[in-house]
């Protein structure tokens, strides 16, 4: 347990480091393709975090939908719209400073809040895997704690998105 | 529903019927008919009112009717008239009907024009018959808004700007007014908006002190109170003829009437206490308007400044707070309404022919258009207070009344106001001399036609009314005097 716990601690910090570094790089790099790549790293690390929390299904979805689907979409659209102008005209520096200060202040504020909250004493208690069956049942059930209604709503939303996406992106005569 | 509501219903019905008509001749006929019906109604009301008074009816307001609109806030549609409102209704009816004749060939869009025109009339009539603060205020707003379109669309010169200026300034005034009215409502216990109830109940002095200026200035803006009068020259100059007539003739009277009916009646102690400030302002109005009129070159500007002076006298006399001066104030409202409407009708006629209102570009028009010229001279003489015409009786009543206030402040102000009769003579004679007399200035004017029949109808009606007021003032004075009794009793006079 000790070893395992040291190893698992190391895993957490590794994932955390990847996420923090990649996310910061993603928003600061000049090249848009690189930003997409860093985003991919973040998403993978997030998926790792889900596995680490024993949410294998969530992690899997994260991998497939995000890392697999969305990033591809990004990459293609980047290729379609690549202009390189990002590099030539940097954003006005006072905006960047303001953004940085705001973000830093926000982070610090939140950290201060967490530090003041009782959650610093909350640890992971039930390390068992969430069974796939339970997820399936909950998703498809109409009982209490059943998610059939949001599930259906989401499916309609996705349908609408597909139609909308096609409508917007199609070439007009 | 009693027959006073007809004053609101007839114009509203006319508006409705106008939607269905298309041919200009039909529209004119309908409007003339509606105007004459209103005039007949006003005359009937006058007869009935005098009859009722002679029959011993002693209520402050006669022909009362009451209809609850919105119970939670005690808003009623409540009507009733006293002698003053009867006279104001008659004045409005005369001017509405002459205004229809004066805009007989309005162009373009006669239908829409008359639609707004009668909507405006609805507001005016509604205001004068209302004795509920809320409905009064509502009709007041109804009377103001159509003005914007009437000037903005059918006006001349810088009409959009003038319309905007006029509407915004008057709206500013009504914002103050609304504050004042709400103050009246809440400080009277917030359970009635009826003028009579409020007047009976009285109001704490410090609340009166706080809200009197709001109400008085709110109405005063419409009554061209210095220094809130500047909408008047631009607005009048740009407005089409009938709108100028209605505006100067009736709408400016709404201001004076409101000051009397609401500000002074409901807050008599504050009126007594604060009258000196407003007396100063109105005293300035009287002389200032007259002096400014002396150097105007545009006929309508001249008349607008003269209106500032004459309407200033109305408020001035009201603030003297004694029965004689207040009688004079109401007579001055009547008189000014009639003669300024006559002026604007004539200026409209002259402008329609010469296409200029600059007196420097005209001259010797008496030879070309004798009818209009003679009427203009009559209007001028009425304005400078010739005995036998309405201006004289009104001004004299005001001056005699004001002179009854014995302290130095009132005396000096009265004397200053008296000087306006000389200055009025100066500017009236100046413009008459330049415009009508002398050799013909512009040879192109030699062939212009004289007044058409509809213009003759309009001007003759107004002149007749001016003569009636000027020659037989006693019954008008009596009518006003007995209506003032409750107010003067409250003022302790």
């Amino acid at each position, binding site marked *: 347990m000790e070893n395992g716990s040291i190893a698992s601690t190391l895993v957490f910090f590794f994932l955390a480091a990847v996420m923090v570094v990649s996310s910061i790089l993603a928003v600061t790099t000049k090249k848009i393709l690189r930003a997409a790549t860093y985003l991919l790293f973040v998403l993978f690390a997030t998926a790792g975090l889900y596995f680490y929390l024993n949410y294998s299904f969530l992690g899997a979805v994260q991998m497939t939908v995000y890392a697999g689907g969305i990033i591809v979409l990004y990459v293609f659209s980047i290729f379609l719209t690549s202009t390189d102008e990002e590099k030539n005209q940097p954003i006005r520096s006072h905006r960047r400073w303001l953004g940085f200060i705001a973000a830093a202040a926000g982070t610090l504020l939140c950290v201060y809040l967490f530090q003041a909250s009782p959650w610093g004493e909350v640890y992971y208690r039930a390390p068992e895997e969430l069974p796939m069956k339970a997820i399936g049942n909950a998703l498809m059930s109409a009982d209490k704690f059943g998610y059939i209604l949001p599930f259906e709503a989401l499916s309609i939303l996705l349908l609408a998105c597909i139609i909308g996406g096609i409508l917007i992106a199609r070439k007009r005569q | 529903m009693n027959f006073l509501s007809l004053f609101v219903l007839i114009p509203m019905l006319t508006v409705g019927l106008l939607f269905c008509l298309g041919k200009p001749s039909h529209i004119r006929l309908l409007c003339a008919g509606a105007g004459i019906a209103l005039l007949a109604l006003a005359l009937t009301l006058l007869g009935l009112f005098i009859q009722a008074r002679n029959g011993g009816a002693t209520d402050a307001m006669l022909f009362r009717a009451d209809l609850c609109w919105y119970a939670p806030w005690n808003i009623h549609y409540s009507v009733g008239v006293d002698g003053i409102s009867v006279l104001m209704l008659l004045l409005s009816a005369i001017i509405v009907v002459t205004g229809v004749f004066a805009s007989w060939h309005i162009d373009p869009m006669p239908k829409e024009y008359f639609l707004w025109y009668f909507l405006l009339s609805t507001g005016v009539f509604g205001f004068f018959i209302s004795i509920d603060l809320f409905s009064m205020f509502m009709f007041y707003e109804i009377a103001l808004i159509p003005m914007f379109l009437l000037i903005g669309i059918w006006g001349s010169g810088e009409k959009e700007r003038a319309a905007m200026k006029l509407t915004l300034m008057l709206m500013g005034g009504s914002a103050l007014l609304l504050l004042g009215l709400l103050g009246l409502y809440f400080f009277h216990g917030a359970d009635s908006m009826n003028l009579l109830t409020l007047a009976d109940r009285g109001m704490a002095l410090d609340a009166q002190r706080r809200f009197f200026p709001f109400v008085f200035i709110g109405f005063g803006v419409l009554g061209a109170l210095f220094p809130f009068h500047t909408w008047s020259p631009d607005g009048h100059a740009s407005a089409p003829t009938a709108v100028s007539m209605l505006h100067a003739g009736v709408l400016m009277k709404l201001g004076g009437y409101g000051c009397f009916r609401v500000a002074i009646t409901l807050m008599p102690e504050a009126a007594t206490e604060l009258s000196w400030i407003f007396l100063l302002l109105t005293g300035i109005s009287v002389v200032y308007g007259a002096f400014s009129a002396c150097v105007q070159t545009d006929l309508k500007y001249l008349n607008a400044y003269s209106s500032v002076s004459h309407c200033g006298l109305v408020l001035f006399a009201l603030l003297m707070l004694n029965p004689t001066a207040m009688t004079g104030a109401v007579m001055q409202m009547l008189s000014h309404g009639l003669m300024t409407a006559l002026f604007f009708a004539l200026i409209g006629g002259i402008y329609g022919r010469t296409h200029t209102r600059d007196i420097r570009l005209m001259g010797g028009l008496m030879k070309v258009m004798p009818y209009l010229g003679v009427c203009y001279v009559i209007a001028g003489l009425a304005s400078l207070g010739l005995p036998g015409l309405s201006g004289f009786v009104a001004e004299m009543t005001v001056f005699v009344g004001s002179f009854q206030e014995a302290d130095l402040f009132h005396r000096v102000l009265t004397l200053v106001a008296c000087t306006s009769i000389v200055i009025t003579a100066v500017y009236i*004679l100046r413009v008459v001399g330049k415009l009508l007399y002398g050799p013909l200035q512009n040879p192109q004017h030699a062939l212009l036609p004289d007044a058409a029949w509809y213009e003759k109808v309009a001007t003759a009606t107004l002149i007749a009314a001016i003569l009636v007021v000027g020659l037989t003032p006693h019954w008008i004075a009596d009518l006003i005097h007995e209506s003032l009794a409750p107010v003067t009793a409250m003022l302790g006079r």
Partner: protein
Amino acid sequence: MFNSCYTALVPLLPLFSFILLIAFGLRLPGKWAGYIGSVLTGIAAVAAYYTAWTYFSLPLDADGTRPAVEILSWEWLRFTPLLAIRLGIYVDALSAMMWVVITTVSLMVHIYSLGYMAGEKGFARYFAFLGLFSFSMLGLVVAPNIFQTYIFWELVGVSSYLLIGFYYTKPEAVSASKKAFIVTRFADLGFLIGILILSYFTGTFDFQTICGSAQDAAGVGGALFAPALQASFLGLSALSWAMLLIFMGCAGKSALFPLHIWLPDAMEGPTPVSALIHAATMVVAGVFLVARLFPVYALMTPGVLEVIAYVAAFTSLYAAVVACVQTDIKRVLAFSTISQIGFMMVALGVSGYGGHAGEGYTASLFHLFTHAFFKALLFLCAGAIIHTVHSNEMKAMGGLRRYMPVTHLCFLVGCLAIAGIPPFSGFFSKDGILAASFAFHPCMGILMTAIAGLTAFYMFRLYCRIFHGPYSGDTAAAQAEHAEAGHHTPHEAPAVMTAPLVFLAVLSLLTGFIPFGDFLSSDGLPHAFPLQTAVAVCSVLTALVGIGIALYAYGRGPRPAFQRMADQPNAFLRAAKNRFYIDRFYLFITHRIIFQGISTALAWFDRHVIDGVVFGSGKLTEKIARKIRIIQSGQLQTYALILLLGVLCLIGLVLYL
């Protein structure tokens, strides 16, 4: 005893004539408008004579005075419980006398105008206005209260305005009418304020009440006047102020210095109008009003009466001097009118109340009476001359006695009357005035006698320049010019014009013999004023000297010395010719100060300062809006940034609290 029917006809017939002619005048053919006006005035005149006759034959009261009769009293407008305007007809000696004067002169002018105005455009309008004027004037003099006087006072002013501006296409006529109206209006302001003060303190407009209590309380100060006498302002009692201000109104109407400037210009009107309004009737309204209120002036405010005397004496002198150098014949007559009104006012001013002391009062009104006839006569003669010569200037005349014998004779009668030569009427009335002046103070007497001499001089200068010497139209150049203008050699006026002249000339001869004191005196008691021989001899001698100088200087055309004086005037003469620059001074006041100074400045102030504030507030709102709307840039990222900052601030705030 007194039938109100025909009495009321006197003012109402001219009014009826006015309404009739205004309504139908344009459709009447030929001279019908004139005939209607004349006939109606004629009937009014007869009714007026009959009224006067009945009135003066009424039995005297127990105290020897004639009772005043008030008929037709109608409450026209009530101001306060005390004050009300009643319209009515108040007949007493003064108003009966005025009625006779007004109707007579008005009738003469109507008849005369039939010839004078023949063929003029606006013939009907002219007669309509004459009717209006007669109505107003007749109503003025019978007013039972001071407010009715004021009402008709204004009406008279307007009819004068309309008649002066009768030739409304002539710019001079227009500006003259305007000037007349505005100057008198300014004076009326004083009158009005005077009425306000008087009525406030006494609580009545009624002449009978006012004058009656002044008489009753002679020397004591009746209860009616007590408050007015006690209240004081700037060292004078309120009553003095009131009476001074009322006198200001009188001075305006009666063209006393410094409000006389309108009268000479008023000569732009048709000449018969000048005869009626600006010589015989309207301009003496001031004298009439002072006479009407005489008990108050004499018994309550003798100081004001003295002021009146000085102002009037100065006016008289001033006008006489100016009249000596004018070259326009109507102007000469106008200044002589001013001067003669000065005489009347002086007589009132120096008069005492009652008994022999009241001689000035009687003399003043006597002079008013005689002057009306001979001055109307002079004006109508001048009209006949102008009618035929087509010019107002003396230099266009001369030697006319050959062409116009009747006019010449009538004019001579008028001149002799005004110069005060016995037995013409002017002699008798002027004698009374001079006697009263000597009684007041010898200096005043001497001054007035000297002015009477000046009067004789300028009138005979006028007479000689018109009727003697060579006729200017005889020169070849002038004849050619005349022919070009389509004019003809001078000729006598038609009978319709000469008949009134002769009638008035006869009146000027005879009216002097009326024992005026029997009818009119300050206290109402008949009183005979015998001729004062010493004063009479002095004044006649002075007048003869004046006439002699005039005849010597201008008898056969201007002598070279006088011509040279006229051609190269010295400073004094130049000033006199320019009326001592009073008009320029007024022009400066009105144009430079009132128009360019006050009015233009106020108009500018209104446009730029007050309207500037209005527009400024609009502009300010717009400016602020422009500044604020930058925040609302449409940039999503900016919104996000602001949102974030806002959230942070809120959280910080919550934490801090």
